[in-house]
């Protein structure tokens, strides 16, 4: 399959800053790929996410979506339709006063007919189980519900690629499980996705992982390989899955442990 998303020597320098936010990052994605972008706070993950969806324009290099460049103002409208972004803080992205109107906001920007908008919003509400909250104020929802709503906001737009910035941060275990299930469903449907996080456990099922450090892409490979080098992962500021961390502290090097069951089984042997 032909790549539909390309980062070509992308660099970005914040105005007035001496250091580069992102430095010469290269990436080629085929449709259906799940990419995890890992790194410590301040490593350039969020800047890269904004570059990927066209909210920031590269200082040098180019971001291409289906051959369209984010640097071209006229092509941005097309890119916004192809790339959806779920931001880290749901509270900061809510525009409307009710859940229903919040989901409708993005669809209304596409000047579709009222009937299509009604159907699409209805679909979003039912898929994410938000029907009973349709008239609720988005800011009054629980943390988990806010995340679901921010995901629904983007899901109804049916983008080819979804970018997700730390989607499980500050959630309780129950909410995390609920949200993860929706993400897994999307993955099963072949949704292309780039997941920005510092926790390796969140992207264990990714096809590929890219590690960022000081704005540079320092390592690319399958997540399994990163699990096998815990010392280096820690040095990059990546949080290892708790079971992997425990196994490493106990001196278990082989086989690589990813969850509690595997750890128990290894220890039992």
């Amino acid at each position, binding site marked *: 399959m032909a790549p539909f998303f390309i980062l070509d020597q992308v660099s970005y320098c914040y105005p007035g800053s001496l250091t580069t936010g992102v430095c010469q990052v290269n990436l080629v994605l085929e449709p259906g790929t799940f990419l995890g972008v890992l790194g410590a706070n301040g490593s350039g993950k969020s800047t890269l996410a904004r570059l990927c969806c066209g909210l920031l324009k590269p200082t040098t290099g180019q971001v291409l979506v289906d051959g369209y460049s984010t640097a071209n103002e006229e092509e941005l409208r097309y890119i916004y339709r192809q790339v959806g972004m779920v931001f880290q803080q749901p*509270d900061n992205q809510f525009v409307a006063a009710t859940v229903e109107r919040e989901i409708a906001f993005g669809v209304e920007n*596409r000047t579709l007919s009222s009937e299509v908008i009604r159907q699409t919003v209805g679909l979003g509400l039912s898929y994410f189980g938000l029907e009973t909250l349709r008239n609720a104020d988005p800011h009054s929802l629980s943390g988990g519900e806010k995340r679901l709503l921010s995901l629904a906001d983007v899901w109804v737009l049916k983008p080819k690629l979804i970018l997700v910035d730390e989607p499980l941060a500050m959630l309780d275990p129950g909410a995390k499980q609920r949200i993860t299930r929706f993400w897994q469903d999307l993955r099963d449907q072949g949704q292309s996705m780039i997941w920005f996080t510092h926790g390796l456990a969140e992207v264990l099922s990714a096809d590929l992982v890219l590690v960022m450090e000081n704005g540079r892409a320092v390592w690319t490979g399958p997540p399994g390989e990163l699990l096998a080098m815990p010392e280096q992962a820690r040095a990059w500021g990546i949080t290892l899955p708790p079971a992997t961390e425990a196994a490493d502290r106990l001196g278990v090097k082989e086989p690589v442990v990813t969850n509690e069951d595997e750890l128990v089984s290894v220890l039992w042997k």
Partner: protein
Amino acid sequence: MRSLPTGQYIPGHSFLHRLDARAKILCLFILMAAVIGAASLWGYALVLVAIALLVLLSRLPLRSAVAPVRGVYWFLLVIFLMNTLFFGGEDVLASWGIFQIAPAGIKQGFRVVGNVVLILILGNLLTMTTLPTQVTTALASLIKPLKFIGVPTEDVALIISIALHFIPTFMEETELIKMAQIARGARFESRKLSERAASFIPLVVPVFISAFRRADALALAMEARGYRNAKNRTKREKAPLVAGDYCALMVCALICLVQIFLRP
């Protein structure tokens, strides 16, 4: 005992709750004109009866309906004194320098205080029977004619909606910042006015920074979801006004007309 809510929406199914928000806002303006235009005892009796009827139709407790008046006693006293002392007129009863007490001034004081009280009750009835979202949607709809004189009404409507929507969020955030500063020894309850004013400066800065950060994040999120300007969006279909809404508007217009005839 919990204090009665002022201006906060109280869910219900009364006639006033069921009226379209656009009709309610228009009725509010017409009745405000009737209140301001009242110039005789009969005129005031008319608007007083109309407001009493509205309170009955809203099925709200009388104490809730008049709650905002209780919070502004001092304000009412000040405007009464200002009108009484500065209005002047014939048959001066007493005078001290520039201050003069005359029957016309006292009458004017009562008149202005009466107007403020009645308008406060009317506004309160609107907000207690209408959801804030309905108010903003109705406002957006009502300002539409301004489009013909070049006002970007869709953008204005969106700005009003977002601004109103973020008020509770900012209040909550301000409270959190205040708590955090109290926990670190800040004092907001000082008896000295100067000390109290000074203590709020460290509160204002973080609140403003937070507001700008939020505005920036919101702008990015809107752009990422394809927002360019409010013009290039699908317009929401508005439910048409029904017979009850037209009746309410006609009755209010009638009250206003009668008020004109009652003017001496």
